[in-house]
């Protein structure tokens, strides 16, 4: 019996490890399909055979819940994350607040973000900048990528001196330095909710969902920089 998991692509490293140990412990296969949360959510709306869905934001999970394709009571907030300001190469840390001289730091250059109207990391970043009163000044200079990793690449190559990405993305890239974390209250909480879908087999799905909240999974998530929210 194979459990099919639809997981936001940014979870790949952690989920690969978790799936491997899950198989080792239970003898059951876990097939994890990684894609953008929006893609996965739409597929579930269309009847995808996913037992478990882990979204990178709450809005798509909300949408599925409204559609009634989630198993009642199976939804929980699994992980938390934060967004950080990164700089190309070595750089000094800064304090992120209303006083951050971000426009001066940028000069004529660009600030790399994920799509501010669509991709979660971009949406959070924009909200944070807005609440700090920086958005109007920097918005003309924002270069939006289709996902966080592409935004990261823009900074890594030096094309853009600064960028806003998830803390989890910034850790492993040598060519960028996280120079500050955005205050938690500057944006909606960054939450990765998980739930079972009505199209999956109940047993396997529930078992995997439980496993995700177990100690092995916790360690794997934390290794990648996520905050584990489940108790």
């Amino acid at each position: 019996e194979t459990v099919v998991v639809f997981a936001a692509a940014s979870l790949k490293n952690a989920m690969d490890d978790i799936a491997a140990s899950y198989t080792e412990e239970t003898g059951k296969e876990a097939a994890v399909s990684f894609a953008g949360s929006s893609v996965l959510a739409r597929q579930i709306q269309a009847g995808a055979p996913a037992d478990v869905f882990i979204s990178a934001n709450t809005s798509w999970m909300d949408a599925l819940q409204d559609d009634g394709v989630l198993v009642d009571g199976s939804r929980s907030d699994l992980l938390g994350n934060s967004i950080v300001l990164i700089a190309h190469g070595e750089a000094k840390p800064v304090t992120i607040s209303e006083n951050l001289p971000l426009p001066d730091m940028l000069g004529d250059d660009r600030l790399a973000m994920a799509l501010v109207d669509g991709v979660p990391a971009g949406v959070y970043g924009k909200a944070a900048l807005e609440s700090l009163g920086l958005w109007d000044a920097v918005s003309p200079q924002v270069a939006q990528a289709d996902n966080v990793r592409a935004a990261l690449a823009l900074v890594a190559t030096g094309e853009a001196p600064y960028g806003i990405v998830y803390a989890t993305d910034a850790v492993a890239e040598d060519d960028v330095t996280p120079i500050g974390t955005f205050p938690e209250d500057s944006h909606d909480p960054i939450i990765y909710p998980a739930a079972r879908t009505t199209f999956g087999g109940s047993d396997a799905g529930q078992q995997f969902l439980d496993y995700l909240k177990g100690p092995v999974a916790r360690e794997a998530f934390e290794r990648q920089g996520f905050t584990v929210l489940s108790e």
Partner: protein
Amino acid sequence: MQFLSPEEWQAVALSLRVALWATVLSLPPGIFVAFALARWEFPGKQLLNGLVHLPLILPPVVTGYLLLLTFGTRGPVGAPLAELGIVFAFRWTGAALAAAIMGFPLLVRAIRLSIEAVDPRLEQAAGTLGASRLWVFGTVTLPLILPGILAGAILAFAKAMGEFGATITFVSNIPGETRTLPSAIYAFLQVPGGEASALRLVAVSVVIAMAALLLSEVLSRRIAARVGGA
């Protein structure tokens, strides 16, 4: 240490299977549509032409989304087909369908061009010798457009090997079933430290596609030598 993990091999094998089926199965309709567009006049011709080109024009994600809506298990085409046991959604067959549709404009264009280059007087000559239209097509037109078909097929194959947006949107990225090479590459690129793995897979897909390309060159040269003499 192995160059590729078993899972990656699986992706390679799947991509090959998907691309091959996509190419092979789209050839007959591709040739037919190309012929119709090249030689016939019929109402709705421009509509057909437009439809064929649609996958090229639309962002792949949109195509994938439309496929999902149409061929999903709840879609207007997918539902009846599912009753007959033909399921595309979240199967490798769906990946092949997506690849075929994305490659279709390339296939049709190439074949159409070469059909238009066939001297209709040769086909007339075959007709006077007693060959019906179908026979003329099979014995004269088809052999003469083989290089074009090959060119179109290799384009479609290459496209199928590289197709990502429509595939992942339509059939997701399920290991062993719909995780093709490009989907695997995509997934690696989404996480920290995945670049090296992605590059390995890119190398594999480049090698495969180049080999196919080379093969098609050799074949097409052989055909040309046969037809052109020397």
